[in-house]
């Protein structure tokens, strides 16, 4: 049947939202539809007891699952997607009867439609039906037992009607689980534990999985039972036997069958194969759970089934034997089926033993013969595959690689069904999910811790990197530990700031004098941006620049410079007498001139006055000013004075800066050191300058020795 037609049909059904229509249409379509109908009927039967509300969410989940499945990218090829969707579609079918028409969203329906189409359009061959029927019939029997076991095992709270409902849900879920590998976090899971969820409780998972397939089969079986009586009988046997065996065994057998069914479907339709793969996934999940719960033989049986559904002659458990035989018989009769399961088995094996299976696959009968030895081997391979899957789950890339490998193998073998890849992929994906889910629950906390560690490490790395950069920026910094590094950085930063201040001062000072009186305002803005980052230093620089042009008055009253520094009191004392701008130059000169002399005279005087050296340095100037004004006030020229003032100002600035830093750092020693050094330095340059200028050589000569003596005396005194 063309897909388009099918789509229309599906749409019509979905839109109508009426189950009846669907049912009516289904018979007309194809046998596939019949299968679906059967399921629906079964569900419907179940539904009578089930509440709609519960199923509504399931539908939503399915929808949500679908996009997720797409995202998961499991199906690299479009066909694979279709297959998945087909699985979803089956779910939809199941659900649709259950859910009221109103619940389904149109958009969702639309999405669902395409998927629906695929499975349907394949025009289910009768093989499919026949295959399904035996299994289904078996399932029915199983379903009964499964239900009972399910009710007893898992949810004591649920009544049997409820269990029936659950089964119905499970059926939907099963389909969902098939498609689901991508979405383990479905809300539905609570009811039916998805293998993919891997809640960590292997028992529960296995039980749930078993229940799900059982439920499905039961549903389908009811509808299909009519078709194959013989199969049903066999299945019943199997079921009977199964109950005797562990529940896990039953589950596995059931799963294998659904997988087989799906496989049968696969050759026909892409979507179906996918579902089959999902079924296989479920199988694997079950196997895992069984691995935990059941003994190894169970695994082996399961594995065998997976490997060769037809072959399974060598079964540890008679019940499984019967089932396998039955299955194998049915497939034999139906060629399409055979090819499909073989491929699927190949897919499974490919993950682990691609080579062995290759040889096995081509000839089915030989496979059966091989199946015996393989079965034991397969047990391990299955485990291996699961582990591989988990590994893959971590990395998509790796998964992809594996996938590619699989593809290659597939190409070599060239199975008839394109679905093989999809199957293998889906299987691996499912394995991944299951494993990842299991791991996830246990390692959630550890993962969080890991993330935290990672972030922390990243942060530390970043800091270390910055530290290294800082170390490169700081000259002569060979400190290893962070603390001293930071210390050094701070010191260096301070000195740099000071340096920039002074230099900018000089640059500002050296501006052509013409500009100063009128250019004061200009200078401000010009330098403001430059110094703005400097903060403290800026104020000083500005003050200096102003001081040159305007005189010290600005320093005193200048809000930019003075308020910032602790110095103002000193300056106030020094310049208390208001100096009206340019007119003060002569006076300034006098005072500045004094500065040269100040070291000699000032220091002794200052010591008593100010407790702190920086302060002392300043006050002495004032005292010196008083003294020197009388002496040498006239000698100094204006340029000289300006120079001296400037020279003195930097000192002051320095001092103030130093004081500031001292206050901030509260390390007086450093500041004192600096002050001393700065004073010396300033004196020397001043002397040099004066010498060059040749203005007050004598005074300087006087001052210099006195300076030295003063310092020495100071040191001595202290």
């Amino acid at each position, binding site marked *: 049947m063309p897909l388009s037609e099918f789509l229309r049909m599906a749409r019509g059904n979905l839109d109508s939202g009426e189950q009846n229509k669907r049912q009516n249409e289904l018979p007309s379509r194809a046998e596939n539809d019949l299968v679906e109908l059967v399921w629906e009927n079964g569900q419907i039967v179940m539904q009578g007891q089930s509440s709609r509300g519960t199923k509504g969410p399931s539908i939503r989940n399915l929808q949500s699952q679908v996009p997720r499945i797409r995202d998961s990218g499991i199906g690299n090829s479009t066909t694979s997607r279709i297959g998945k969707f087909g699985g979803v579609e089956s779910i939809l079918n199941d659900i649709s009867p259950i859910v009221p028409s109103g619940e389904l969203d149109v958009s969702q329906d639309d999405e669902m439609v395409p998927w629906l189409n695929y499975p349907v359009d394949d025009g289910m061959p009768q093989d499919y039906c026949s295959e399904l029927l035996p299994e289904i019939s078996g399932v029915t029997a199983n379903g009964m037992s499964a239900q009972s076991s399910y009710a007893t095992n898992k949810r004591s709270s649920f009544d049997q009607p409820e269990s029936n409902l659950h089964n119905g849900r499970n059926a939907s879920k099963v389909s969902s689980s098939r498609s689901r590998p991508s979405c383990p976090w479905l809300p539905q899971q609570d009811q039916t534990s998805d293998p993919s969820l891997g809640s960590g409780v292997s028992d529960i998972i296995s039980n749930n999985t078993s229940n799900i397939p059982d439920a499905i089969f039961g549903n389908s079986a009811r509808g299909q039972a009519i078709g194959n009586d013989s199969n049903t009988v066999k299945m019943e046997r199997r079921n009977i036997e199964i109950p005797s065996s562990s529940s896990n065994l039953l589950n596995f057998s059931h799963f294998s069958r659904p997988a087989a069914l799906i496989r049968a479907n696969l050759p026909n339709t892409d979507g179906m194969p996918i579902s089959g793969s999902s079924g296989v996934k479920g199988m694997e999940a079950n196997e895992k759970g069984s691995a935990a719960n059941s003994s190894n033989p169970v695994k082996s049986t399961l594995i065998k089934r997976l490997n060769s559904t037809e072959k399974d002659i060598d079964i540890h458990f008679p019940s499984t034997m019967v089932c396998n035989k039955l299955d194998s018989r049915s497939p034999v009769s139906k060629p399409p089926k055979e090819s499909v399961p073989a491929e699927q088995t190949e897919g499974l094996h490919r993950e682990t033993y691609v080579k062995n299976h290759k040889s096995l696959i081509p000839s089915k009968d030989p496979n059966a013969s091989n199946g015996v030895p393989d079965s034991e081997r397969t047990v391990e391979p299955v485990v291996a595959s699961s582990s591989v899957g988990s590994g893959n789950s971590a990395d998509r890339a790796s998964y992809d690689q594996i996938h590619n490998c699989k593809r290659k193998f597939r190409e070599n073998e060239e199975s008839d069904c394109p679905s093989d890849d999809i199957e293998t992929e889906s299987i691996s994906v499912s394995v991944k999910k299951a494993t990842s889910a299991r791991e996830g629950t246990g390692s959630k906390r550890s993962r969080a811790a890991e993330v935290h560690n990672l972030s922390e490490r990243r942060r530390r790395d970043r800091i270390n990197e*910055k530290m290294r950069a800082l170390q490169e*920026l700081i000259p002569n910094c060979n400190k290893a530990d962070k603390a001293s590094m930071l210390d050094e950085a701070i010191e*260096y930063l301070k000195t740099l700031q000071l*340096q*920039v201040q002074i230099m900018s001062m000089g640059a500002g000072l050296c501006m052509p004098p013409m500009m100063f009186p009128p250019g004061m305002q200009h200078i401000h803005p010009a330098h403001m941006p430059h110094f703005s980052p400097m903060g403290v230093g800026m104020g000083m620089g500005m003050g200096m620049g102003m001081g040159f042009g305007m005189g010290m008055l600005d320093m005193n009253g200048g809000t930019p410079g003075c308020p910032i520094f602790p110095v103002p009191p000193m300056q106030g004392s020094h310049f208390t007498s208001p100096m009206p701008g340019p007119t003060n130059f002569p006076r300034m000169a006098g005072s500045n001139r004094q500065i040269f002399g100040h070291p000699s005279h000032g220091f002794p005087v200052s010591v008593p006055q100010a407790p702190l050296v920086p302060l002392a340095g300043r006050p002495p100037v004032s005292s010196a000013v008083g003294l020197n004004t009388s002496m040498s006030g006239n000698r100094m020229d204006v340029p000289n004075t300006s120079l001296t003032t400037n020279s003195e100002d930097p000192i002051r600035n320095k001092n103030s800066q130093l004081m500031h830093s001292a206050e901030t750092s509260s390390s007086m020693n450093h500041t004192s050191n600096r002050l001393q050094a700065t004073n010396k330095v300033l004196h020397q340059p001043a002397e040099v300058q004066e010498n060059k200028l040749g203005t007050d050589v004598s005074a300087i000569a006087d001052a210099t020795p006195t300076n030295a003596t003063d310092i020495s005396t100071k040191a001595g005194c202290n």
Partner: protein
Amino acid sequence: MSSRRSRSRQSGVSRITEDQIADLVSKLQQLIPEIRNRRSDKVSASKVLQETCNYIRNLHREVDDLSDRLSQLLETTDSESAQAAIIRELTNVNLELRCLYFLDCYSLGFGQYIIYSPT
């Protein structure tokens, strides 16, 4: 328990240095106008360090610019003029500052006498 205690002790030791470092970082932060002006109490250490690096680079650039300008001024101005003297002095001061920096780095506590000289 013993392991935990020992760990806590270790962490205590590291805590000290960590506090120290945090203190230093905050000091550093105060020196950097960009961060200081931000006034947001929470600044990551890496951010502070980054800004410090940037700031130091800026300062270096500034110093270079200024020294260039000063040298230009020195060239243009009369060597005998007061401005030249000033510039020279400033450059001297600059050198002095650098010396001071290194002196600071290598000689601590030398100036004790001088500080408390008044007594």
